[in-house]
C-alpha cells in the first residue's frame, strides 16, 4: 500500500508546481488586493471582474487562453522565447502558470478581505509618528493582514495541487514534467490495472489536503494571536 517511487516523484512535482505558483503570484496578488481594497480608480469594477474570471470560467477555457497566449505562437510565448529564451510549453513552469492563474482570485479575495478589515486608525497612528507610506505598509498593514495572506496562500496552493483542466489543455500530460497528481490519477484510471495506483494517489491527495488545511489553521491562529496580543487569549 506504500506509494512507489514513480508516485512519489509525481507528488514531488505537484508540490513544486503548486509552491512556485503560490510564491510567484503572491506579490502580484497582494498588490492587486491592496488596490482593490484601498484605491479607487476608473474601471475598477471591470478590473475586479477580470481578476475573478479564472474562478468562474471553465478551467478548460483558461487553459485554452493560456495556450493561445503563452504557446509557441502566442504573443507572450513568442516574446518570452525571443527575449529570454524561455519556453513554458510542455514544461513544469507552464503547469505552474496554470496553477497560479487558477488560484489567483482565491488569493486576492482572502488578502483583500483582511486589508479591508484593518483598522485604518492604526495606519494613521503610524503616519503621525513619522512613518512613510511604504514603512506603514511594511510594518503595520502587511503584518496585520498576515492571517488573510496565509489563508490566501493556502487556498491558492490547494487549488494549484488540484488543477486539472487548465493544465492538461495548456501544457499536456507529460510524465515527469507536467503530469501532476490529478493528471496522473486521471491517466491511471485510463490504464487497465491502473486502479490501485489511482487509488493510492487519491489517498495521497486526501492526506496532502488535510495536512495543508491543518498547517494553515495553525499558522493563521498563531498570526492572529500575535496581532491581537493578549486579547486573543481572553486576558486584558
Amino acid at each position, binding site marked *: 500500500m506504500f506509494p512507489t517511487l514513480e508516485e512519489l516523484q509525481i507528488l514531488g512535482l505537484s508540490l513544486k508546481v503548486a509552491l512556485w505558483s503560490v510564491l510567484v503570484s503572491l506579490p502580484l496578488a497582494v498588490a492587486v488586493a491592496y488596490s482593490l481594497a484601498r484605491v479607487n480608480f476608473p474601471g475598477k469594477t471591470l478590473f475586479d471582474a477580470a481578476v475573478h474570471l479564472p474562478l468562474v470560467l471553465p478551467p478548460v477555457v483558461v487553459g485554452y487562453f493560456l*495556450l493561445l497566449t503563452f*504557446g509557441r505562437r502566442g504573443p507572450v510565448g513568442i516574446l518570452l522565447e525571443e527575449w529570454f529564451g524561455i519556453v513554458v*510549453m510542455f514544461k513544469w513552469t507552464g503547469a505552474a502558470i496554470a496553477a497560479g492563474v487558477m488560484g489567483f482570485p482565491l488569493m486576492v479575495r482572502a488578502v483583500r478581505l483582511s486589508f479591508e478589515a484593518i483598522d485604518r486608525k492604526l495606519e494613521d497612528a503610524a503616519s503621525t509618528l513619522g512613518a512613510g507610506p511604504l514603512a506603514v505598509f511594511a510594518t503595520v498593514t502587511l503584518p496585520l493582514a498576515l492571517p488573510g495572506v496565509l489563508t490566501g496562500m493556502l487556498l491558492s496552493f490547494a487549488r494549484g495541487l488540484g488543477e486539472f483542466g487548465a493544465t492538461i489543455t495548456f501544457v*499536456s*500530460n507529460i510524465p515527469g514534467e507536467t503530469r501532476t497528481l490529478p493528471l496522473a490519477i486521471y*491517466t491511471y*484510471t485510463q*490504464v*487497465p490495472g491502473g486502479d490501485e495506483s489511482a487509488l493510492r494517489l487519491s489517498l495521497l491527495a486526501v492526506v496532502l489536503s488535510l495536512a495543508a488545511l491543518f498547517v494553515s489553521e495553525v499558522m493563521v491562529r498563531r498570526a492572529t494571536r500575535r496581532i491581537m496580543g493578549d486579547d486573543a487569549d481572553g486576558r486584558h
Partner: protein
Amino acid sequence: MRLVPVVFSLLFSAVSSGANAEGMIVLAAASLKDALDEAVRTFDANTGQNTKVSYGASSALARQIERGAPADLFLSADVEWMDYLAGRKLIRTETRVDLLTNRLVLISPAASNVTMQIAPGFPLAAALGNGRLAMADPDYVPAGKYGRAALQSMGVWTSVSTKIAPSEDVRAALRLVARGETPLGIVYRTDALAERKVRIVAEFPATSHPLIVYPAAVTAVSKSAAASRLLDFLRSPAARAIWIRHGFGRAN
C-alpha cells in the same frame, strides 16, 4: 421573480430530455470524428433517429462502458480495448465486426518544410531538436500504442521516448501540431487529411506496427433496436463511400 418560471422550465426540460432519450448513444474513437459525424447525419436523416456520438480515446470510452455508461454502440480504434470489454461480457460478441482500417503518418505543421524518409534508424530525434513529438499517450491510447510500436520497429523509440508530448487522444496531438506547438507529430492518416494546417511528412510502413483495425459492437446494456441497424448502415456501400472519402480502408 420572473426568473423562477424560467429556472423551473430549464430544470424540467433537462429532465424530460433525459427521460425520453430515445436517441441512441454511440461512443467512438476520436479519430472517427469527421467521417462518423457525416455517416450518422445520413443515417439519422434516413431513419428519423436522433443519434448522439461521444468521441474520445478508445481507452477512456471502454472504461466508461465498464463503469456503466448507457452507450448503445462502441467503435474502438484498436482490438485490445474491444477484447477488454468482450472479456467482461460488456458487448454483444455476435454483433462485433471489424469495420475499418487506418494508417499511421508522421506530420508537421503545414508551413514547415521538413522532409524525412521513414526507415530503420531514421533521424527523428535530430529533426525534433528541442521540440517535442506530439502523439497520443503510448501507454494506453490506441494511436499512441501503434505509434510506439512503429517507432520501436524502426529502432528510434529509445532516442525519442523522452521527447514526446503525450496527449489524451489522437485529435489532441493533431491540434498541437496544427497550432505549431510541436514540430512533428504522429497521427492517423485520416486525421492528417482532416486538418488543413498539417502536412503529411511520411507514412509509416504498414508492417511497422500491428494492423490498425476499428472493431465495432453493440454494448450489452443497449436497449435500442436501432443500434444494430446503425452498425449495418456503417457497413453499407453508402457509408463506405463516406469512409473512403475520409481516407479509411476497408477491414476484411
